[in-house]
């Protein structure tokens, strides 16, 4: 059994891993794990990742969780072009810096924005207080400003002149609120231009393929009561 990637393309980090693997021609078996059906809670999946989260990787007897760990593992094992995760000390540090920052900053506001604007009301039928949503969108805005000012600056990509895993992680995050109707790129020409460059590097077809599922989430019918119950407790934290 070769490399297996356990993914749900509704999840931002899963999309980053998917795009990275496909773009670099890394052969893998896609093992879908449907979050909205609670499949990540199954005993079978727990064997792959005790933390019950996606993405997860299984390479022979080696299992690995956490998207950044997976991206870096794949980049090294499959000897992808250097720009994805550079050998150069300082260039690499820039990627590490972005990957660390986004995890405690942008990721949270993108997830919350998407859930509060769309998933709670549309899928779970739960109204979100307007002030909560407003605060989340303000935080998202603040993170986007930091992304532009601190990372992108006047560079072509977030960690330097060439595309890296940092860009994949960033773009897949930003597509989350976009899928919920947030106009992330409209008022931010710098980010919009960066998006075009990333899409061009990744390939428009692959980019669209990776985002097909999340872009259709707004058309999902409301969840049935069984699913609602299953998901409710784990997503309550996204209301805070």
């Amino acid at each position, binding site marked *: 059994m070769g490399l297996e990637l356990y993914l749900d393309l509704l999840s931002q980090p899963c999309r980053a891993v998917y795009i990275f693997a496909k773009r670099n021609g890394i052969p893998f078996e896609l093992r879908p794990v449907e979050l909205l059906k609670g499949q990540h809670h199954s005993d079978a999946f727990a064997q792959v990742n005790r933390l019950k989260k996606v993405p997860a990787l299984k390479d022979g007897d080696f299992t690995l*969780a956490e998207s950044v760990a997976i991206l870096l593992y794949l980049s090294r094992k499959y000897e992808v072009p250097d720009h994805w995760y550079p050998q150069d000390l*300082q260039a690499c540090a820039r990627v590490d810096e972005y990957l660390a920052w986004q995890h405690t900053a942008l990721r949270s506001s993108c997830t919350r924005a998407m859930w509060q604007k769309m998933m709670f009301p549309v899928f779970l039928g739960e109204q979100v207080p307007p002030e909560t949503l407003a605060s989340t969108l303000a935080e998202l805005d603040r993170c986007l400003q930091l992304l532009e000012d601190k990372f992108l600056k006047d560079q072509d990509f977030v960690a330097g002149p060439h595309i890296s895993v940092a860009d994949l992680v960033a773009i897949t995050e930003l597509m989350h609120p976009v899928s919920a109707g947030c106009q992330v790129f409209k008022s931010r020409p710098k980010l919009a231009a960066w998006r075009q460059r990333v899409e061009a590097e990744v390939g428009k077809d692959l980019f669209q393929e990776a985002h097909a599922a999340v872009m259709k989430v707004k058309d999902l019918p409301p969840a049935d009561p069984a699913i609602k119950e299953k998901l409710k407790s784990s997503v309550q934290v996204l209301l805070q």
Partner: protein
Amino acid sequence: MPERRSRSPGVSKPGTCQDLWHRRPEKQAGPTGVEPETLYLGAPQSCHSCCPEPAVRRVPAAATMGLELYLDMLSQPCRAVSIFAKKNGIPFKLCTTEVFKGQHPSKEFFQINSLRRVPTLKDGDFILTESSAILIYLSSKYQTADHWYPSDLRARARVHEYLGWHADCIRGTFGVPLWTQVMAPLIGVHVPEEKVQRNKTFMDLALQQLEEKFLGDRAFVAGQQVSLADLMALEELLQPVAVGCDLFEGRPRLAAWRERVEAFLGSDLLQETRGPILNILEQAVNKKVPTPPPEVHPCMLLRISRIP
């Protein structure tokens, strides 16, 4: 190790403090009319209570060209970086930045890092934030022993796997008790009991996962040897301990891990690094923690509002 002065309050005349670091600087104009030898880093650190006036830290000029680390020892990631650098004999200039202790962030620091985040590394013109990035940079640049950040593909993946989970479940969570018990009250904010309890639940869950998923029956969180992951984890877990939440009580596996890491690092190094955080609760109780100035209140309030 210089002898510590006792901290007994008392009257002493200005300029009589014998501690090297607490001498008032003599003005020495260099070619540009600026003192060449002293770098002012933030407002002066308060001296011991024996000196009625604040003193400034003198820094030899030679040190200003090398590696600089901007650190606040109340901060968990800063302690991890400090411990790592010192344990590995990495020469650096410590630029103490006490963001909340009534100190104004200096213009220099602001120019270096407009977000005034700590830790920050400055290596010549190269400026880097984010503790995990800094640790990886230092381990690579100074070619530290392999176990810190193993070159083996899978072993390294385990370190990154830990760091990813740490960002989600440890960072932000274990700092909360210090905020609820010390920092928020300093600016007159009371964090509701409901949030305090919720935080305890999150910490319990995280500790369970740390023990079961990461430690397991391994000696350290990412393998059989100490790594960057252990430093990051331990300093975070120490934060609530410093304000009286003994997380290690009733968790013998975690306690044993802590002992192993601390034995490896050495008690002198740890005592030196953890002095400020271990004293903070006592200082707060005795009302000896300076009130943060108004300009840092907004970011403090923002942090407090993020407590789930």
